[in-house]
Structure formats: C-alpha cells, structure tokens
C-alpha cells in the first residue's frame, strides 16, 4: 500500500476506510444499485460462491468484494451500499458517491430492478453524471415476462448511451453477456456516450451551464465538470475543499 502513492485509493482520505489494494487487479468494477434489487446475487453470479464475502462491521455499511477473471484480465468488484440516490447526505450515499467519483472505478455496474424502471433510472442518470463508464444490468427480467411487459433493452441502451443488459440473476440468465459488456467498457472497446439531463428549470440550467464552463476551464481533464458544478450549487463543501486544495486537479491529470 505504501508504494502506491498515486493509486486512486490513496488520493482522498474518504476512501481510506476501504483500505483497498487495487493494484493486483486489471480493472476495478463498482457495483451500485437501489436497495433490494439483487445486487448481492449478481455479485455471487459474477464471482461464484467461492469469493470472500461477509458482513463487514462498518458504520452503517455492509460491504462485500470479490474478483473474477475474463479474457485474461482480472476484475476486482466492489459492492457499494444500496442507495436510491447519490444526491443526499446519508452515510451510505456518501460512500457510494465518493467511490464512484474519487475511486475512479474502470466500470460502474448499476443493477436495476426492471419492474421499477423509472425509479431505478433516477439513480442510473445520476451515476451517468459522474462517470461515463457504466453498464446497466436489467435484473428481474423474468418478472417482466411474467407480467407480459415488454422492455426494449436496445432502445434503452441507445437512450442512455451505455450498454443495458437483461439479466435474471437468480438463474444466471444473461450473466455471460453482462460480463462481456463489462469487459468491453473497461477495455475501451465499447465507447459510452452517456445521457446527461439537460432540462432543468431555466434559472438553474443557466447556473449549471455557467459554472460548468468555468470548471472545465480550470480542470480541462475532468470528465464530469457538470457534476462538480452541480455539487457546488448543492453546497457540497467536500467538493469545494477538493477544488481549493488541488486534490480534484490531481485526481484527473
């Protein structure tokens, strides 16, 4: 750990609680999603039951991690706390947000309950503000079929600008395809063009656009200038500090 001064996990103290050593994996995958959508089942599907899972007595957080190999690459997968949103201030959301923002995972895999698509997309769209590299797993697809509801995954994928893969975590249906997409996005084979919400109330949209331009000027390498601008407007003092003391700049050089 000590020789890894520049590896993402060391950049912010916020991540120290994770105590990761990520250098032994080729790609880091963050696993996000609403509570109760089958995230842990997906984790088990991906890593097999042999991986090291367990409850970690953290503050409010139970966390698991695992690893899997695909096409000669080693993937490390970090299970983030289940949250409805990333905009609020609960401890769980902060951890999930900080990891996606500062931990810079190579792919963020968002598990979605297909039967509650709308509410789940709320989280997906928020994640797309922070990071480009996202794969959406449309879990519980069998429930949709049972209810005779049709979901056009290709159309969804096109609208979101990232892969959206129907899966049934319980029976491992679609898991192979999911892994392949994770690999494609991680290795850069699939280039994501994430959807960014453009229609906020007039005054707010103007403020966001104005600040985004300024942030971009100051930090040209930042992939998520708009998110930073939104956090500033939200009064996120952690981001303010990261800008002031240069940590944000260092992170995305």
């Amino acid at each position, binding site marked *: 750990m000590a020789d890894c001064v520049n590896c993402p996990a060391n950049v912010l103290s916020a991540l120290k609680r994770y105590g990761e050593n990520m250098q032994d994996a080729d790609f880091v995958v963050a696993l996000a999603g609403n509570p109760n959508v089958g995230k842990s089942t997906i984790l088990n599907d991906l890593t097999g039951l042999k991986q090291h899972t367990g*409850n970690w007595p953290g503050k409010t957080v139970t966390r698991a991690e695992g690893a899997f190999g695909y096409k000669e690459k080693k993937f490390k997968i970090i299970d983030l706390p289940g949250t409805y949103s990333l905009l609020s201030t609960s401890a769980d959301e902060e951890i999930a947000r900080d990891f996606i923002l500062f931990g810079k995972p190579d792919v963020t895999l968002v598990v979605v309950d297909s039967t509650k698509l709308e509410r789940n997309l*709320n989280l997906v769209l*928020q994640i797309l503000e922070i990071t480009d590299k996202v794969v959406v797993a449309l879990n519980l697809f069998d429930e949709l079929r049972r209810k005779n509801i049709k979901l*056009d995954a290709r159309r*969804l994928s096109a*609208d979101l600008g990232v892969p959206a893969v129907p899966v049934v975590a319980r029976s491992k249906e679609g898991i192979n395809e999911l892994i392949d997409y994770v690999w494609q996005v991680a290795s850069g084979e699939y280039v994501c063009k994430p959807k960014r*919400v453009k229609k906020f109330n007039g005054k707010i949209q103007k403020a966001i656009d104005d600040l985004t331009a300024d942030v971009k000027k100051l930090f040209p390498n930042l992939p998520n200038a708009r998110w930073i601008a939104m956090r*500033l407007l939200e009064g996120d003092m952690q981001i303010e500090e990261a800008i002031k003391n240069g940590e944000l700049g260092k992170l995305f050089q």
Partner: protein
Amino acid sequence: MTNAEKISREEQIKALLKKAENYRKEIGDSFHDNIVEGIFAEAERIASRAIQYPDKKPSKDWEVVLDRLLISKYAGYPIMFLMLAIVLWLTIQGANYPSDLLYDLLLGKIYPILKNAFISIGTPNWLTGIIVDGAYLATAWVISVMLPPMAIFFPLFTLLEDFGFLPRVAFNLDNFFRKVGAHGKQALTMSMGFGCNAAGVVATRIIDSPRERLIAIITNNFALCNGRWPTQILLASIFIAPLVPPVWAGVISAASVIAIALLGVALTLFTSYALSRTILKGIPSTFSLELPPYRPPRILQTLYTSLIDRTIYVLWRAIVFALPAGMVIWLISNVTYDGVPLAKYIVDFLDPFAIIFGLNGIILLAYIVAIPANEIVIPTILMLTVLIFGVEGYQHGVLFELDSLPDTANLLRIGGWTILTAINVMVFSLAHNPCSTTIYTIYKETGSWKWTTVSVVIPLTLGFLLTFIIAQVYFLFT
C-alpha cells in the same frame, strides 16, 4: 507552474467558488428539488420509450391478494404471531437434538480425553483446572448450547425476510412503535432479538435514522433471546407448574414464560417511550418503509449466508468472551483462602444486598461471571450451589447441568430457592445487562462508550427495580 500562474489560478478558483455562492443565494433552497424533478422527468421519458405495457391489465395479482391477507384487520396479527411462535418453537425444540449431540461430543467425549491427556503429561493441577475445567468447559458449553438454535433461527428469519414477510410485519406493528416515538422496523430488530440480541443489534442497521436506531439498539436486550428461553422454561416448570393441578402444569408454565416475553415487549415500548421523551427527544422524521414484492426465497443461498454472516459471527464473539470467563469461573471456585473458596467470600458479601431483591448472592455472582452468555448462568448457579452448600455427589468446581428436573429442583431448594427467587430470577433474566457479546456489538455499532453504558445501565436498573418491588410485595404478604 510559475508563481504568477499559481496566483492567478488561485484567484480563478476563488472567483469560481464565489460565483457558485452567489448562484446559491439567488436560487435558494429549491435547487435540490429542481434537480431531482429534472432527473425524474428524464427517467420517466426514457422509461416510457423503452417499456410497453400489455393491452389489458392482468386480473388480480396474487401479490395483491397476499398483501390484503397479511395486512388485513383480522388475519394480519394472528398470522404474524403464529409465524413468530412457529419460528421460536422450531428453534427451541429443533435445537435439542443437535445440542445433545454436540454436548455429548464436546463434553461427554472430548472433555475427559483432554483432561486425561493433560494429567498424563504431568501438567500441574491448577493449570489443568484453568484450561480444561475452566476455559475449555465454558467454551464447549457455549458452543453446544448456542450453535444449534442459532443455526436454526437465523436461516428461518432470513427466509421470512427474503420472502418479503418481515416488512409487512413492520407495517402492521408500526402503530405501536410510532406511539412511543420509535420506528416500525424496530419490530423486526426486536423479533431478531428473540433469537439473539447481538444479531438484533446488528440488524438495527436497517433503521436509517440515527435516533430511532439508537432506541432500537438500547432496547433490544428486552427481547428475550435464545439463551434465556431455556432458563425461563426450566424455572417455570420447576417452581410455577406445581402451583396448579398437574393437568394445568404445562399450560401455566408456558403461559408464565410467554408472560415474561410479553413483559419484555412492554419494557421495550416503555423504555423507547421514556428515551424519546428524555435523552433522545424527538419524533421520527424519516419514516418511510418500502414493502418489496414477494419473492420466493432461495433456501441454499440463505443457509449459506446466514451461517457465514450471522451464526459464525455471533458464535465467534461468544467464544472469545467465554474463554476468559471460564477461567474466572474456575478460579473463584477453586482458589481458596483459609480453606474457603473465593466464591464463598463474594457470595457472602453479595448476600445481604441480594436479599433485598428477592435473589441471593449465588445468583448475582453467577450473573457477573457468566456475562459471556446467558446460556451458562444456570450451570454456574448449580456449580456454585454445590460448592457453597457442600452438596455431596457432584464434582466440585466445574460447570454442570442435570438431566432430571426433580434433581435440579432439589439442588436449587438446597440453595434456599423459593417461589419468589424463581420469579425474580425469571424477571432478572429478562431485565439485566446484555451479555458481553451484545455489549461489544453495541459498542461496535454505536462507536460510543456513552450509549454502550446506557444500554447496560437501563435494563440493569429496571431489573433491580422490578425485582425489588416484587420482593417487597411478597414480603408484605408472607
């Protein structure tokens, strides 16, 4: 970067933050609302493009039917209590057989082998005592009585959770918890506490507001845990059952145990109420409870995770605490001064104090040294009774339990037990400090010595208070 560039960059950053600040003042507090609305509007648009609902709505979904039943006025509560009763019955009854097996193996077979091995290599007596009769015996005891019920209770509970039943329970019972200023999900952590308080405390993580979570943690100990049910059943059948004609014996002892468990629920509600009026003032502000769709539980997965996550976790902590406690128990009963064991001095010292509460010195000492697990309180009491009253026919200075009810009754009566002692031990067993595993878990979960202390002091105080009142009333009438 040159110095000048650095300065100009700093200026720019300052200007950026200032600008953001000004925008914030202009927009005011509605920013967050607007962002969420904007994102949801987009989510709705995208979802509606991708999803196509069937032309005609399916007739009544079985999920709705089930919900109507589980939440309904007449069936809701009975189903809930029936489920809880079944789970507890399965746990207590089902654990007997594997418990006996383990007991036979760890205490019946391995214990003598271990002891002989120690003696044969010439280990001094005191060392054999501390390690084999003390540490090993207590630990083996804890494992054999704790592991089976947990291995049954936790998976059953997890299955109900996965199926979606438990959130409905929280919904049904929220009414009571709202009135005492707590969260409906406390019903679940309390039910979990019927299995194991340490696990109940961990389970409070599902309560997302800190105040209500603290209330749930502090009061969890009032849920009568697995380690205490057998004590209650034992004492009820020895002391309370004989009060009525034999036909009714079974009913009255069952009723008295249930009464104790209900007293625990009452204490939970009372303490929650008192806490939310005083040191944890306030009303729950964030109550929202998702009632997830029913999903067929997956048995194997549940068995695996509940074994790893809950059973092993709790058991391991219990073992860690049982080891030193076993040594202490052995030491106080085997180290002598002037030919009298230490335990006798402590018991004599505690006796005058204990009498006021209708208990005795042996009971108090047992509760002090058996802090790692409620399961070993009765064995400790029996051991101390034999030791202090010099009863013949038993091995001195080691934990034991008797298969026969009359023998146990006899021994306790030699120790001076009356109906008052029995009732008060039942009450004190419900309301006393949590076991060390639970205390440690509370500290881990709250990260605060203050709240840990509160969680210990409140039940202890209430326990002494209740036993004091019962004893005084009893003395008044006899």
